[in-house]
């Protein structure tokens, strides 16, 4: 008997527009010790599935079908009975380690809680076991830290604590819902490794949920690809990646920017994109959920549910026209743009580091942006009343030069000072030391009026497409904001210019009179880019411009940025924690670590031959999809 058997699981949610089928007809089984990956873009029903398994669906949600754990039907079981199963037989790790722990309870007690609940242990005993668990998941000094509160731990440590909590009663099934999405790549690597280790050690079954193909590829035996609430492709990880059969899965893979180096002179490759955005669940067609965005649809696609088509063994795709994909079948992993890049990269000779450094290369033209010995520190809270105020050095002695037309990427983990640097470059914050010169003018020394004029040449794009557009202004006002501040053009001229840039970013002039909430995330990011473009700036500072977007949308935005660079010759200062994005778009990379630049160079070189140990961990931690990186059954620890 399989450990878990899910059949025909449907989850419906009431929405203002009627009942939305968030999950439809989900079937899968899971054996003891087996690992299953669930992948899909935001909103496709992954979390709801996980919650349904735990019996923790939101009250309004209606689930039907069957979920059997060791043959016992869980759907419809009274809560009291479910309580005995939750935490004991199956446990869950959530996405946000910052909020998954009760801020008011000591972590020792929180880890001990399931033990006391299910094993009937006394307080002392439970705490003893909790301490052992904490040690096992790698909390140093577990004995002393039992009585600490969650806020006294870092994000990675907190995720370890939640894992300890989930493992406390030795469950048979562990569900991890995007356990690493909120963490830095380096931490992600460690946590995934820890989970894999523990799963292997305790012979647990694992359901790993992620939106990142790389994570799934490296960590699970079998995978389910979900789209719009349904499974579109399933199978053993290795066989799926050896022959991606569904247009959506292929699109996802192709949309991922690669870590492969780009030819120094050649045209940068464009990413493949999936047109459109993830649809609203309430509006799904009765046929294939992907039909609206698919390049290979037939009229029947929109009306008939796609049949299951067996590709190989247990590898199944749900598509009406698998033959359209046929040319690609069987060679998914072997053809561009996945593996060849990697192979080509390894063949490339390493170039001298620092080639793009302005101080080393004789300058033919004046630098567009020159940052000298830039530093910024923030005062920290006093430890006690008479203690001197210590400083947090968010940025220290940062030097770099950006030449016109050459984009520079900045990478680093959370808190390394990336956003601080962006703010200083944009003269939105005052440096503690150093200077920022745009076209030879020291921005921080300019009088207010001159600074306003100088801003014409530099604009900014932000990470959060929801937060960076004023929800109470029409698109026209938003896009023309830089012009309003300059105060040169008339209202009509401004509108005309706004219509022009909107066209440039692929929106219509009729969109000018709408409000931001009427657009999807990707569209909003286009609007933000249009706003940055309207003054024809030379430099665009983009702080994590795509990290809030789904892969398919991210590819659209990255392509747009690339096109604009070719058309208008803008230069990007691109900030990202995603090395692949930087690699894809930039000519030079600066690695920021604890406020200092620890390494710089062309992305290809840097990622091949990282010198600084930090850069190396960063590079190694990037989940990849390539032969040798793909998880094979019973191979618990990925080869690194």
């Amino acid at each position: 008997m399989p450990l878990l058997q899910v059949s025909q699981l449907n989850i419906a949610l009431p929405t203002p527009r009627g009942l939305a089928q968030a999950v439809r007809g989900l079937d899968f089984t899971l054996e003891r010790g087996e690992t299953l990956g669930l992948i899909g873009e935001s909103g496709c029903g992954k979390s709801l599935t996980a919650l349904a398994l735990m019996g923790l669906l939101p009250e309004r949600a209606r689930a039907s079908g069957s979920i059997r754990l060791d043959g016992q039907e869980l759907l419809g079981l009274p809560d009291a009975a479910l309580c005995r199963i939750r935490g004991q037989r199956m446990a869950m790790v959530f996405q946000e380690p910052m909020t998954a722990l009760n801020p008011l309870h000591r972590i020792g007690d929180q880890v001990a809680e399931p033990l006391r609940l299910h094993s009937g242990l006394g307080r002392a005993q439970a705490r003893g076991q909790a301490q052992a668990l904490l040690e096992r998941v790698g909390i140093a000094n577990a004995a002393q830290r039992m009585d600490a509160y969650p806020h006294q731990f870092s994000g990675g440590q907190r995720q370890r604590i939640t894992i300890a909590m989930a493992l406390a009663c030795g469950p048979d099934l562990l569900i991890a819902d995007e356990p690493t999405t909120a963490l830095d790549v380096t931490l992600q690597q460690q946590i995934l490794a820890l989970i894999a280790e523990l799963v292997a050690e305790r012979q647990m079954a694992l359901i790993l949920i992620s939106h990142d193909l790389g994570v799934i590829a490296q960590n699970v035996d079998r995978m389910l690809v979900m789209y719009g609430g349904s499974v579109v492709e399933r199978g053993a990880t290795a066989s799926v990646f050896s022959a991606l059969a569904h247009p959506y899965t292929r699109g996802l893979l192709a949309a991922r920017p690669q870590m492969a180096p780009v030819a120094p002179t050649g045209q940068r490759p464009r990413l493949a994109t999936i047109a459109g955005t993830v649809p609203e669940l309430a509006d799904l067609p009765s046929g294939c959920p992907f039909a609206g965005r698919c390049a290979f649809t037939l009229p029947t696609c929109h009306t008939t549910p796609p049949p299951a088509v067996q590709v190989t063994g247990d590898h199944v795709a749900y598509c009406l026209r698998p033959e359209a994909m046929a040319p690609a079948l069987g060679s998914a992993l072997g053809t561009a743009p996945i593996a060849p890049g990697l192979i080509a990269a390894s063949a490339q000779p390493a170039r001298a580091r620092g080639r793009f450094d302005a101080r080393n290369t004789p300058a033919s033209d004046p630098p567009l942006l020159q940052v000298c010995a830039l530093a910024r520190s923030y005062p920290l809270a006093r430890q006690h009343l008479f203690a001197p105020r210590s400083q947090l050095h968010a940025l220290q002695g940062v030097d770099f030069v950006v030449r016109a037309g050459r984009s520079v990427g900045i990478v680093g983990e959370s808190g390394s000072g990336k956003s601080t640097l962006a703010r200083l470059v944009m003269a939105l914050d005052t440096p503690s030391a150093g200077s920022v010169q745009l076209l030879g003018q020291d921005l921080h020394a300019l009088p207010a009026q001159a600074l306003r004029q100088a801003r014409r040449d530099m604009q900014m794009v932000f990470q959060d497409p929801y937060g960076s557009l004023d929800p109470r202004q029409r698109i026209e006002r938003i896009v023309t904001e830089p012009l309003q501040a300059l105060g040169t053009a008339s209202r009509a001229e401004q509108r005309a210019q706004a219509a022009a840039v909107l066209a440039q970013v692929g929106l219509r002039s009729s969109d000018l009179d709408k409000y931001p909430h009427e657009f999807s995330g990707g569209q909003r990011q286009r609007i933000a880019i249009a706003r940055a473009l309207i003054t024809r700036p030379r430099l665009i500072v983009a702080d994590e411009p795509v990290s809030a977007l789904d892969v398919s949308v991210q590819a659209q935005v990255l392509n747009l940025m690339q096109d604009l660079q070719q058309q208008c010759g803008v230069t990007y200062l691109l900030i990202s924690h995603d090395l692949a994005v930087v690699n894809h778009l930039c000519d030079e990379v600066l690695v920021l670590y604890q406020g200092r630049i620890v390494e710089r160079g062309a992305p290809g070189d840097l990622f091949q031959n990282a010198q600084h140990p930090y850069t190396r961990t960063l590079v190694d931690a990037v989940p990849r999809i390539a032969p040798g990186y793909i998880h094979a059954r019973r191979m618990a620890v990925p080869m690194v």
Partner: protein
Amino acid sequence: MGLFLLKRFATLLGTLAAASVVVFAVLEILPGNAAQTLMGADADPEAVAQLSAQLGLDQPALHRYGQWISGLVQGDMGESHAYGTPVLELVQERLALTVPLALLAMALATVLALAAGVYAASRHNRLGDVGVMALAQLGIAIPNFWFAILLILLFSVQLQWFAAGGFPGWSEDSGGGLWPGLKALLLPAVSLAVVQAAILARTTRSAVLEVLREDFVRTARAKGLGQRAALWRHVLRNAMVPVVTVMGLQFANLLAGTIVVENVFYLPGLGRLIFQSIANRDLIVVRNCVMLLAAMVIAVNFVVDLCYGAIDPRVQARDL
């Protein structure tokens, strides 16, 4: 933690000092004079002037302010012009009514509100919730003095269970005692508590709902805690932070309410003392009472800050 408290304490003292200046200055402008009021219309002007001098009303304002403050620091509030007794004594007597009244009301309100709020939250959007919240809306909308009048109409005029007003005192020899005293405070406390309970119930409900949405509650449920257990062990304490905040903020309103309700029930409390004393131009009493009320509000808010510390360990980290 120490630093946090020290800072709060310094602000507290500063606020009190500022309050004393404002109170003194405002009362200085008050038209009328205690001596004249005490002597009545047909008194001789000479006698009035004599009394003014005796009461020290002819001294310059700054001098009197200094005297007042230096007295306060030593725990001496001066002597009431009207009663001729030390203000401290007078105030103590009145506090013996106002403080129990406020505490009784607060206790009633808290018990009622927590029960109603948690109940409503646990029945979110169901009949119980809607009913309790409708009642709460009503409770907020009803002026406390009107509710007091209605209570009198019902319990004193119709049913004659309670006295319509007045306070027999806590001591047996003046015809009072613990039970008669409490009985006299019951209706006033209820009329005060209703509004507070309604406000607190709403706060509790939304705080509980807010916390119920938090990830850690889901975590707790995933551990196998039942709905109820999760509520008690994880939700309530977290929800207490906003509830305690609102309780602190509401305390000022509760005191304000006692002023009005004391007038409805003719209770000899601090509020009515202030009222009477303003009428009598017994400014020294007004001054001290107002300061005392302000100090109580400030102190309660200080206690609320202490409660944060006790409830939420993160407060200690948030020193700045």
